[in-house]
C-alpha cells in the first residue's frame, strides 16, 4: 500500500493551545507548517480548561507584576522549577493574553473595561484571565480562528488557503524519523481510513499534552496517552520530572461513569468551601509549615479575604493543589468522607444562586446533567483525580529545543516549567508563552540548516511494520491490557506512594508490556479504535515505566510526588532532577540524576531569606547570604 507523503518546514504535532500557538508562530515566520492532531480541529484537550489563564496584567490588583507571579510559580513548584522558564512565563504571559484579544477573544471584563482576573490557588493576586468557566474553549477557538485567518490571507496571496498552514486532523503520529542524529520527519496514520502518512520535515514541535489515560480516575480524555512523551523518548530525547503528577483535588466522584471529571478550582476561588462528613472545614487543619504565614487560620479571616484581600490572608481551600489533594485523601482515609467516597465542596451556602449560575455555568450544567445535583442548592461530592503531568521533554527554556536536533516541545508534554507542582491557570499561559517560543525556535533552526536531512527508507519500513502489526495479530483485546495498566498505576503509583508498591507496579508493567506485544485488533483499518488503542499501549506503558522508575528513586515528598516512606521534603533532593531515557525500541529505560542549575542571582534575591531557608541547603543559603551582602 502506498504511503501518502508531504513535505513541510515545520510539523507541529498537537492542536491544543501549545501546538496552535507554535504553528501560528512558524507560519508568521514564513515557514510551511503542518498541524497534526488526533481529534478534530478545535477539540483538543485544551478545550476542557475551565478556570483561566494566569498572567500578571495587574488589572484587578495593580500590585501584581511578573516578579510576584514568578515567586508564586516557584513556590507552587516547591523550587524545583526550571527558573528560566518560570521567569519567561511570568514576563511574557500578559502579552500572550492581550494578543488573543487582538485575535478576537472575548474575556470577561472589569468595571473599567479591561480583562477581568480571578483568584486561584497559589496565586497571590487575582490573576486568571477567564471567560466564565470555559476559558479553554475561548483560548482554543481564538487560536483556531487565528489559523483560519492566516489561511484566508494565504488564499488571497497564493490562491491556496493551505499553502502555508494545513491541518491534518484525526491523524496520529506513531514515530519520529531521524537521519543520523537529527529529525527528518514523522510517520503516522489517518484514523479515519487507516492509510499511512509520512511527513518530510527538518523540524518537529511536540505539543501532544499529557498522560492521564494511564490512570483509572482522571480528568483527561482518550487523547492523553503520553504519545509525545514516548515519541521523544524513542527518538533519543530525555524526559525530566516524570515522578511529578498532579492529582487535582476536586474531581467528580459520583456517578461512577463520570468519576474523575474535573470540578474547576474556580469553585473555591469564588468562595466554595471544603467540608468533611462532620461538617468541619478541614483545610484549616492541613496548612503546612512553609505556608503558615500566608493562609488564614480562622474561618472568619478566610471569609473576609474574599472582599478584603489587603488586610486578610487567603482561606486554606486555596492552598496549592497537591496540599488540598493530600488533605482530602487523608480525610477520606480517616473515615470522614462523604457517602460516595469524597468530601463536600459547597458553594450553595456561599453565593446567591444567580451568581453561581453566572460565574460557574458549566459546573452548574455538568452537575445537573450528569449527577442530578443542583449546586446552587446542595454541596458537591469531590475527590482527587489524575489531572496533569509536570514531567515531560527536557527542553531549552528559550527555544523549546529538546536534546535531539530539530525536535522541539511545548505545553504539557514539556517538562521543567512547573517544577514539582503546577499552579492552576499556569498551564494555559504556559501553552501560549512556550508554544510561541517553540514555533520561533523551530523556525530559526530551519533557517540555520544547510541541508535538509533525508528520510531513510529503512526507517519508514520499520515504522510501517510497527504501525500495522496489531492488525495482523489475533491476540488479546487491547482494552483489557489498558484497564489493567490503569488500575496498576492508580493503586500503586497514585497520590501516595511507597517503595514496595512502586516496585510491584514496575513488575506489573513489565508483564503488561509482554501482553501488549500480543494484543491484536479485530476489524479493518477504517476508524478502528481497537487498533488505535493497541498502538497507544506502547506509549502508555513506556511513560508509566518512567513515572514509576523516577518515583521509586526520589526518596522524598515534594509537590506531585508523595512517599509515605519518605514524608519529608529534602533540600538535597531539590538540587537533583531525574532524567529518563530509553533505547529506540523502548526497552532499557534509564533514570539518571542530574544537578539542577542554581537560580540566577537577580532571581533568587527576589525571595526572602526566611522563605528560602525552608527549601534550600545550608550551603546554598550561605551563597545567598554572600550574594545579599555584596
Amino acid at each position: 500500500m502506498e504511503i501518502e507523503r508531504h513535505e513541510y518546514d515545520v510539523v507541529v504535532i498537537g492542536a491544543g493551545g501549545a501546538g496552535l500557538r507554535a504553528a501560528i508562530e512558524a507560519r508568521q515566520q514564513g515557514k510551511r507548517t503542518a498541524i497534526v492532531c488526533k481529534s478534530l480541529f478545535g477539540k483538543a484537550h485544551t478545550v476542557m480548561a475551565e478556570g483561566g489563564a494566569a498572567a500578571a496584567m495587574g488589572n484587578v490588583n495593580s500590585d501584581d507584576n511578573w516578579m510576584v507571579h514568578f515567586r508564586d510559580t516557584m513556590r507552587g513548584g516547591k523550587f524545583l522549577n526550571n527558573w528560566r522558564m518560570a521567569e519567561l512565563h511570568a514576563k511574557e504571559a500578559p502579552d500572550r493574553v492581550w494578543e488573543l484579544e487582538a485575535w478576537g477573544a472575548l474575556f470577561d471584563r472589569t468595571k473599567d473595561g479591561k480583562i477581568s482576573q480571578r483568584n486561584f490557588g497559589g496565586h497571590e493576586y487575582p490573576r486568571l484571565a477567564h471567560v466564565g468557566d470555559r476559558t479553554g474553549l475561548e483560548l482554543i477557538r481564538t487560536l483556531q480562528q487565528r489559523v483560519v485567518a492566516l489561511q484566508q490571507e494565504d488564499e488571497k496571496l497564493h490562491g491556496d488557503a493551505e499553502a502555508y498552514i494545513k491541518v491534518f486532523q484525526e491523524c496520529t503520529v506513531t514515530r519520529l524519523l531521524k537521519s543520523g542524529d537529527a529529525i527528518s520527519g514523522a510517520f503516522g496514520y489517518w484514523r479515519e481510513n487507516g492509510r499511512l502518512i509520512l511527513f518530510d520535515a527538518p523540524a518537529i514541535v511536540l505539543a501532544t499534552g499529557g498522560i492521564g489515560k494511564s490512570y483509572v480516575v482522571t480528568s483527561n480524555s482518550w487523547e492523553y496517552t503520553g504519545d509525545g512523551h514516548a515519541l521523544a523518548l524513542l527518538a533519543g530525547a530525555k524526559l525530566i520530572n516524570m515522578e511529578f503528577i498532579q492529582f487535582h483535588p476536586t474531581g467528580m466522584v459520583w456517578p461512577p461513569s463520570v468519576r474523575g471529571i474535573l470540578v474547576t478550582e474556580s469553585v473555591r476561588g469564588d468562595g466554595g468551601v471544603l467540608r468533611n462528613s462532620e461538617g468541619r472545614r478541614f483545610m484549616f487543619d492541613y496548612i503546612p509549615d512553609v505556608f503558615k504565614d500566608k493562609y488564614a487560620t480562622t474561618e472568619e479571616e478566610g471569609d473576609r479575604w474574599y472582599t478584603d484581600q489587603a488586610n486578610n490572608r487567603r482561606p486554606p481551600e486555596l492552598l496549592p493543589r497537591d496540599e488540598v489533594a493530600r488533605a482530602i485523601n487523608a480525610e477520606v482515609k480517616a473515615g470522614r468522607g462523604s457517602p460516595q467516597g469524597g468530601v463536600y465542596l459547597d458553594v450553595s451556602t456561599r453565593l446567591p444562586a444567580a451568581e453561581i449560575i453566572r460565574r460557574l455555568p458549566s459546573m452548574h450544567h455538568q452537575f445537573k446533567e450528569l449527577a442530578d445535583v443542583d449546586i446552587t442548592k446542595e454541596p458537591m461530592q469531590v475527590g482527587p483525580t489524575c489531572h496533569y503531568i509536570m514531567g515531560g521533554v527536557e527542553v531549552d527554556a528559550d527555544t523549546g529545543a529538546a536534546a535531539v536536533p530539530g525536535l522541539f516541545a511545548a505545553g504539557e508534554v514539556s517538562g521543567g516549567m512547573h517544577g514539582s507542582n503546577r499552579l492552576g491557570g499556569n498551564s494555559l499561559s504556559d501553552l501560549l508563552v512556550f508554544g510561541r517560543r517553540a514555533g520561533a525556535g523551530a523556525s530559526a533552526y530551519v533557517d540555520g540548516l544547510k541541508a535538509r536531512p533525508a528520510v531513510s527508507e529503512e526507517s519508514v519500513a520499520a515504522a510501517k511494520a510497527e504501525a500495522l502489526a496489531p492488525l495482523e495479530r489475533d491476540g488479546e483485546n487491547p482494552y483489557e491490557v489498558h484497564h489493567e495498566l490503569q488500575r496498576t498505576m492508580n493503586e500503586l503509583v497514585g497520590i501516595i506512594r511507597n517503595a514496595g508498591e512502586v516496585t510491584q507496579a514496575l513488575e506489573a508493567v513489565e508483564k503488561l508490556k509482554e501482553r501488549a506485544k500480543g494484543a491484536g485488533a479485530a476489524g479493518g483499518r477504517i476508524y478502528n479504535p481497537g487498533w488505535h488503542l493497541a498502538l497507544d499501549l506502547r506509549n502508555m506503558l513506556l511513560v508509566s515505566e518512567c513515572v514509576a522508575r523516577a518515583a521509586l528513586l526520589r526518596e522524598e515528598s515534594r509537590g506531585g510526588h508523595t512517599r509515605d516512606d519518605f514524608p519529608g521534603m529534602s533540600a538535597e533532593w531539590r538540587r537533583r532532577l531525574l532524567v529518563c531515557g530509553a533505547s529506540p525500541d523502548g526497552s532499557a529505560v534509564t533514570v539518571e540524576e542530574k544537578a539542577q542549575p542554581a537560580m540566577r542571582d537577580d532571581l533568587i534575591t527576589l525571595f526572602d531569606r526566611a522563605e528560602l531557608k525552608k527549601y534550600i541547603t545550608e550551603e546554598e543559603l550561605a551563597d545567598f547570604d554572600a550574594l545579599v551582602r555584596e
Partner: protein
Amino acid sequence: MGYKAKFRVWRGEGGEGKLEDFTVEVNEGEVVLDIIHRLQATQAPDLAVRWNCKAGKCGSCSMEINGKPRLGCMTRMSTFTEDETITVTPMRTFPVIKDLVTDVSFNYQKAREIPSFTPPASVKPGEYRMQQIDVERSQEFRKCIECFMCNNVCHVIRDHEENKTNFAGPRFLMRIAELDMHPYDVADRKDAAQEEHGLGYCNITKCCTEVCPEHIKITDNALIPMKERVVDRRYDPLVWLGNKIFKRSGSGSKG
C-alpha cells in the same frame, strides 16, 4: 441498579450499513456514550465513535439517539425506560465515514468562508477596553462547542444537499452575528450574510436552537437580530451611511 438494555446501533462504512442489535449492561448514572464504550470494550472493538471530554465541553460525540441529535456524553440512560430499545445513528446531514462517525468537513469549509475578526488597525494589543455588557452578546455565541448538531438538524440542508454550497448553516450564520456584534469588529458583514452565506434561507423554525446543547438562543439572539440588521441596512440609507462613518472612525464601539 444494573440492567441489560437493548441497543440498536448503526454499523457500516461509506454509503452502506445497517442497524445492529446489542444487549448490553447498564449501571447507575451512566450515559449513552458509556454504553457505546462498553460495546467497544466487550462486543465490538472496532465500533467507531468520536468523543473527547465526556463532559459536554468539546462537541465531539454528536449522534442521533432515537432520531434526535444529542451529545452521547450528556444523555443519561435514566431518561429511558429499561425496556425501551435505544437506537443510535450517526448525524444524518453529513456523510458517514464509519458507524457513528461522520465527515464534518462541510463545517470546517464554511468556517473558512467567513471573513475573520477585523479590528481597527490603530488599536494595539492590551489597549482593548470593552464593557461586560457589550461583550455579553457575542460571548453567548462563543459558548458554541462546535458539535454541529444545529447544522445537522437545520432543514435547509438536512435533506437538501443542493443547498450546502450556498448556506453556512446556523453555526456559521451565528459566527457572522458574533463578529458583527463584537465591539471592535469593523468589517462590513451584512450584505455577505444575506448574499453569500444564505441568511435568507433561514425561516426561523428554531430547530437549531432546540438541539443546541449549550442552550444558545441561536435563532432569537443571533439569526433574527442579524436579519434585522440586514433589513435596516437595506431600507434605511441613513443607518447605512451612519454605520460606515462610524466604522471608519474606528472608535471601537459599534452596533
